[in-house]
């Protein structure tokens, strides 16, 4: 059971949260301008690397805010959390 730091509420247990997949995958600004392949890349392809990974979490049973977490997928180390709109380098 992870302990996840909500940037708004502080550290809480994983059952309070909902997972949201890889972070920084924006919904394309102009989907109609994309080829089928480009659109499929957005829809179906996500990184699956061992190591540090930026991912989205929602504090569903708390403040209900979405935020981002850097997690090491190999060690499950929670490197840091940051708000939507911030960049990973801001993670503390």
């Amino acid at each position, binding site marked *: 059971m992870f*302990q996840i730091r909500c940037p708004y509420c502080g550290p809480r247990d994983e059952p309070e949260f909902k997972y949201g997949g890889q972070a920084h995958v924006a919904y394309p600004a102009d989907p109609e301008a994309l080829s089928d392949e480009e*659109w499929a890349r957005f*829809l179906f392809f996500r990184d699956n690397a061992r190591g540090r990974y930026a991912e989205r979490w929602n504090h569903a049973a708390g403040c209900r*805010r979405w935020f981002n977490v850097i997690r090491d997928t190999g060690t499950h180390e929670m490197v840091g959390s940051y708000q939507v709109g911030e960049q990973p380098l801001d993670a503390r």
Partner: protein
Amino acid sequence: MRRLPDRGRVDHDHRVSFTWDGRTVEGLRGDTLASALLASGLRVLGSSVLMSRPRGVVTDGVCDPHAFAQVGTGDATEPLVRMHQVECHDGLVAESRIHRGVLPTGADPDRFEKRHAHCDVLVAGGGPAGLAAALAAAEQGARVVLVDDHPQLGGAVLGEDLILDDAPADHWVRHAEERLRANPDVTVLTRTTAFNVGDQGAVALMERVSEHLAPAHRGGRALRRLWQVRTHQLVVATGATERPLVFADNDRPGVMLAGGVRGLLHRYGLVPERCVVVTTNDSAYRTAIDLVGAGVEVPCVVDARPDPSGPLVQRARDLGVEVRSGCAVIGTDPDAEGALAGVRIVGLDGGAEEAVACDVLAVSGGWDPLMDLHHHVGGQARWDAERLRFVPEGTVDGLRLAGAAAGLVGTAACRRDGHLVGLVAAEATGFGSAADGPAVPAADEEPEGAPADLVVVPGTDPVHAFVDQHRDVTIAGVERALGSGLHHVEHLKRYTLVGTGTEQGRTAKVNAGRMAADRFGLPFAEVGVSNARPPAQPVTFGSLAGRALGARFDPVRTTSIHPWHVAHGAVFEDVGQWKRPWYFPQGAEDLDAAVLRECAAVREAVGMMDASTLGKIDVKGADAGAFLDRLYTGVIGTLKPGRARYGVMCKADGMVMDDGVVLRLADDRFLVTTTTGGAGGVLDWMEDFLQTEWPDLDVWLTSVTEQWATVAVVGPRSRDVMAALAPDLDVTQDAFTFMQVEEAVVAGLAARVARISFSGELAFEISVPMTWGLALWEAVFAAGQPFGITPYGTESMHVLRAEKGYFIVGQETDGTVTPLDLGLDWMVADKEFVGRRSLRRSDMLRDDRKQLVGILPAERLPEGSQLVDDEAFEIPVPMIGHVTSSYESAALGRPFGLALVRRGRDRIGETIYAPLADRTVAVEIVDPVIFDQEGARRDG
């Protein structure tokens, strides 16, 4: 074994009486089930799982491969309970089922609790290392939790004759315990096992709260308590366990681990009559020394080493114990019941076998640190080829091993290590400085000689020599697996089951790995052992579930009208967490009869339904319309206040996600309705986009599902009912049109009325604050009596909507169906919305996609029936679609349904087939709208 009157930690003055296999056995207070049975003279506990060989107690702790029993009676019975953890009490009932238990069939009458806690340092293990670690950390100021799975603290000290600070080690243990218990920041949990370590310091503990007491003395307390502790630092001081040696008939009752024999003496005062010791290392000499000290005959210590020396060896010799160096035990001989009567000793460099009589053989093949908790979080271990044991390799954040669990030997050395680790753990948590901490206790220990590298005694009969006694795996079994090409220890484990036992194979895994290494001529370090996985000790499902059972398992949601449904005999259906009336049987009606009656009433007169469970989301703000336009396939923003519109939402992949009617209540306010089961998901979906994609929009979302009760009044006479209920509301067609929303007083209640229909009939949906739902319902029911108003449930609702070709999310759709597949082209507006781009992906443009059609089968089909092209077919046959909905229609007087069929819309009028188990049914494809195709009934 025999009980000495003045030895052990049992209370010789307090007898307890319990039942074993139906007969009464006496033990002493402080006995475990295992020790009491041994004291009663019992040697054979039961028979082995595959080969039905007699098996007995092997050691004094939970690593014992055989000491399992069925404990308790009736529905409180538990299988495979560790006998060394069962404390004897009056009235205890246990049965000999050492490898296969029985599960109760009824609900568990025992109660289990859960507790959450936080601490700075959690110490697992209350032996010298754990006690020292807890003391050091606590005295630096850290909040400490110390857990130990025994009733008393002390660990190995309880089972050995050890000296610390020139006094019996007990003295120091009691002193340490007093200091810990006096510290308000320390929680000491005995009878508690740390069985799982998760991420970020999550440690799961199982505390045996009252199960060691007779039921009458439990005082209403829970049997066990699951602790979920979040700790900053975890100190693993779980000790070590002894390895057996592999020789013929090494599974005979009476063949025990040497440390276990000492433990039985020091904990319970139990001794053999005549005990041979066989070893590869110095530690087992303690067994000979302690037994001789207790007056037991020890004919010899059989040592595989050619030239054993060192202080322990010398002490044994000084006591007159013969040391047979360079020898091993190659086989054992049985008595009449199959228990040990003697051993056969052989020289490792040849020579004749020699038989020696004994009732216990104390075996030591070395020691394995218990590092399970370290392994749970990815901690590694390295094989020390000189000392022949695993030692931890590298570190895991927040976890430190201490004492014997870290590979150390010797009481003082373990205490010293625990002290240092405790200081470091406290410092890591922000308490004190390890360098300036309290003085480190000394560690002057008797040095031990190098061990002999022996697993299998050469010349051993492979068919009767057991590598894993719990799983009945012999040398021959391991050889067969290795010879079959199962070279990896994980494959070996799965093929032979070696190491998979209830005791987690603690006496088997290392020996199996070393045999594999020998066989392939590889260093054991390269072969290793199979992974240790949680739980470190078995836990029952009941104790994990705690009180989250039955009504407490999941919330049950009911509307304010629910009591009426119950009082009127509704049969309920679970929709998500909601209880919804499924149908309202009258008299002896079954589902089908009730539904035919309910549907006919709606089509011919008027029905009423509790629609309160539909999801409702209040969407407010200047940009609310623009926001909804981006999510729905259709246009919502142009809706005028006081009007409603049906909408469909897609996921980004273009597949239908949810649908419902959107009401515009004001310029800046919408009420979105969702499916009953989809409400939470839709709100999450909206919040996600609002927060992460469009944070600039001025929109506020509020779930109001439970704030409004809704009663649907449906059917050609619904206007009459409404006129009676709301005399001030003009419900004529010209004044109140389809999809119009009005605020009105209905039955004296402030209400919102909307002309929404999910049946094709004239219909009004009346919403009032949830508190008034029942009052509204009763008023509608009363006002409808002159018109024969009929309450109906979800099944009739489904039939009525299917007759009109209306799909249900999750029934007609399954995450692979687009709005275009459903024939909703008219709902897909020429504007950007989530998922729109997906609708022209090449796969969506395929001309053979499955499309929603109506079906008229020759008989009512099971939902999910497969559809094929030809009546005469041979398997395999291409499946061209499947039945999504299937009902008997009162209005049509025949069975009908909906289906997804390849190119279905082009095939209307054709006949396809549904193969059932024993016949094939002809199915005519028709337009999805089967009833009232022109929509004449909508306005009454």
